[in-house]
């Protein structure tokens, strides 16, 4: 378990360091995800212990957003002042994004997957 956590932290750390070194606004953890993929590729696979830690983390991904969600209380004034603009933007934009993404995916997949799709 300790090795697994260390590997996750190291990938994130390396991601953050690389981003800082290049001096770009790019999320370190996302680069870290790529680095983890690279590690798994070079090792030609994962270990049971690592799978356990990573899967537990991903299975409880919702939990990690709870502190930020509670942050609503801090921003309540700004949100109340602009509630119509914010709720319209969030709801309409999210529905639009879902529809556009899924249809473009399906449209292109029909060509690339051939007859099976």
């Amino acid at each position, binding site marked *: 378990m300790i090795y697994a956590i260390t590997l*996750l932290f190291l990938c994130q750390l390396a991601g953050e360091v690389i981003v800082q070194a290049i001096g770009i*606004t790019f999320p370190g953890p996302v680069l870290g995800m790529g680095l983890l993929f690279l590690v798994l590729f070079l090792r030609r696979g994962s270990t049971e212990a690592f799978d356990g830690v990573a899967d537990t983390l991903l299975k409880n991904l919702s939990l990690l957003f709870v502190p930020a969600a509670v*942050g609503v209380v801090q921003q309540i004034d700004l949100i109340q002042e602009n509630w119509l603009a914010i709720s319209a933007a969030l709801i309409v934009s999210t529905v639009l994004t879902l529809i556009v*993404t899924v249809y*473009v995916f399906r449209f*292109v997949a029909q060509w690339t997957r051939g007859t099976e799709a």
Partner: protein
Amino acid sequence: MTNTPDVYRIWVYLYQTPLLWLSATLIAYAIGDAISQALRRHPVANPVVIAAGLLILLLGLTGTPYQVYFEGAQFVHFLLGPATVALGLPLWRNRKAVRRDLLPMCAALIAGSLTAIISAVGIAWIFGAPGEILASLAPKSVTAPIAMALTQVLGGIPALAAVLVVLTGIVGSVIVTPLMNALRIRDYAARGFAVGVASHGIGTARAFQVSEEAGTFAGIAMGLNGALTSLVFLVLPLFL
């Protein structure tokens, strides 16, 4: 009532350690998750909403400021980074499916990512929202730590951006299942990818509840959208 001072002393002690609010966060989530499970993962019974609602109520009742709460909750919040890294594992496991659908994913990512940014800013602008709100809304579809960093580029408020990100995640994860069923889309790779682009980690968590394939594609979409949105924001200031 001779023990009242003792209770007060214990409360004061707990108030000063991160343990109290860290435990409260985990308990609130456990309750939210249990309710979600009891309602057979109904999309409206979102564990994040239930947990956050309980905690906000508790903070209000005890008169605890958010900063004190976050002292404890930061340990949970911190794990967002390592969890993003951990998405590399389902990416590796499903590399064959990912390679097969590389082209649909790239096309859907670009279309979805731009739709998310432009439609959010455009709609809020029509409703007359001020610039700092628009800037905080722009990165709403990417995961919290990324959005907080990106909104600063445009002059937004990082704390507000984080809240809008969470609200977007909740909207998407509640809407996605009924919407996709209404559209009669049964391709779980496509469904998962869409919710990952639109609603990042909370959408991904929802997708994992529905199917492993949907969750994997949502996770990939979340990572890629974080990367693409960052690139858009990196290039954007050059044109403004």
